[in-house]
């Protein structure tokens, strides 16, 4: 059983991999789909690689052909693709209308997540829906990481990324520039679960991974 990950960047993939580890999904069972590998150094200047737009392009494909998905599923052991997006990007990427009213809305995270999932499904022309796990970070994946450090709703944080790095620097952590190392604690299910109350989108993602592993194992 193998899972693919399409993410905005390598660091995002690394965080997701740590979360998957909590559900006993080993490194050797994960394929990091890297749109960058579709290109060579000659056209490496393409600005969309490793970004929100890069994930969008991978999902949309060209003329109905989505090589990153079609080719990933060439192997019967490859069961699901995880798609990551940070919602912080939607405003600048032309999708500000997706954002629900935030103030006083207790379902803000769930609503936003569902809308982004709909957006992704649209890009995919509703293909692969039973094979996709959505890793929608509200508002960015550092908000997930921040739950390891502070115990309040990190999706409400104005700038979770800066806040996360401030926390890391404060603690003078080892490997302080490496999200993969800094989120090693996500690999322990017990610790991961303690983070759920502080970021609904993290919990939603983890829940969907758990459900998927149960389904694929049965």
């Amino acid at each position, binding site marked *: 059983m193998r899972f693919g990950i399409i993410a905005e960047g390598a660091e995002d993939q*690394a965080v997701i991999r740590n979360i998957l580890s909590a559900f006993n999904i080993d490194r050797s069972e994960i394929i990091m789909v890297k749109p960058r590998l579709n290109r060579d150094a000659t056209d490496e200047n393409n600005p969309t690689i490793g970004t929100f737009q890069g994930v969008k392009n991978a999902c949309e494909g060209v003329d109905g052909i989505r090589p990153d998905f079609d080719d990933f599923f*060439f192997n019967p052991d490859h069961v699901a693709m995880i798609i990551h997006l940070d919602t912080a990007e939607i405003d600048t990427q032309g999708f500000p209308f997706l954002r629900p009213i935030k103030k006083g809305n207790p379902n803000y995270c769930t609503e936003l997540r569902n809308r982004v999932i709909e957006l992704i499904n649209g890009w995919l022309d509703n293909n692969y829906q039973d094979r996709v796990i959505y890793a929608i970070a509200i508002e960015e994946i550092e908000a997930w990481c921040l739950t390891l450090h502070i115990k309040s709703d990190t999706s409400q944080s104005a700038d979770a990324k800066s806040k996360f790095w401030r926390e890391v620097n404060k603690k003078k952590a080892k490997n302080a520039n490496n999200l993969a190392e800094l989120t090693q604690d996500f690999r322990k299910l017990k610790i991961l679960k303690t983070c759920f109350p502080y970021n609904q989108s993290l919990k939603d993602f983890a829940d969907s991974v758990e459900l998927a592993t149960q389904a694929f194992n049965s």
Partner: protein
Amino acid sequence: MLKEITIKNFKSIANDTIELGRVNVFIGENGCGKSNILEAVGFVSAGIENQNIENELLISKGIRVAKPSLIISNFRNKKPAHNFSINLIFQDEEDLNLDFSIDNKEDFYGDWSVKRAELNVNKSIVAEPQANYDAAHKSKESTTHSLEKMAEGLRKNYPKWVLKRFLIYALNTPALRGFTHESRKEPVGIYGEGLDVLLASFDNEEIAKLKSYGYLISWLDDFFIDVQDSLKFKGYKPNRSGSALYFVDKHMPKDNSVFSLENANEGILHVLFYLAVMISYKTPQFLAIDNIESCLNPHLCRYLMEEICKLAKSQDKQLLITTHNPAILDGLNLFDDEVRLFEVNRTDKGYTKTTRIKVKPEIQSEMGRKYKLSELWTRGFLGTTPDYF
């Protein structure tokens, strides 16, 4: 033919089982443990050859010798093992278990011993040469006797027994060119030594077969062995190669188209070596090739691999091959169960894990265009790209 191998506590392999075909290609990032798989088989071969295994024997088979404490698996957060074991299952369901041990893991001059060798045929043990390792040191005679008993059992039960002759070939150009002679293995050395002598031993049929692959090298008109080594005295080997292999270039004037292997490109030497080893019945029937792609153009890799797969069947050989070149994969037909591709990974704990790469049957018609294995690999779908690339 070997059907399955289980390796425990050997180098980076904590516990891994591989179901083998006839041609087995292993891919994976550097340091994932591909060569360790070949070396585990090499250890079995050495253990069958001699119960007390000296480093020299291991080196002669192409095994990278290391300090014993590094040969037995050595992982953080895992209790260190005291020996390693290898279990082989053959096509006819016989199985052979070998445990390897060394007196002192820190003694890098010590010899490895086969602590336990158990051969099961039809579920009954026919030879157990040495149940107790210590007893071997007390009585040389009984050890020899039991080893002979095992060998007899093997010969009797495996007419095609080939493990003892198993070698890991890892070619290098100076050896192929006849400049170095590090390996004395017969008929050809593991680095490529002695190719000319092997070719000189070929009968007409073998030579004709070998020459039928001339199409792989576009400039090649012919090759021959200067049995008297007389051309050496006419200035054809200024670099003093010990080889008497010569080539004829089809684009050069007939009176000046011959040159020795000193001046030939590396590619033809590698190709000729592999084909000769595959065609010859004097070379091991079960063999490994480490980094088969070395010095070869990608297109040549593909066609050579296709030919090697065909030859493996016609010559009844079994191969373990490692490669880092995606083009090699395009020469593999994964719908043929005898041809298998494996990706080798390290798990989160660092254990080597081998997974057979399967292809959905329903995409067979689309293989040519959409699912070229080389592209799937370079694009990362075979799961063997380093994480942070």
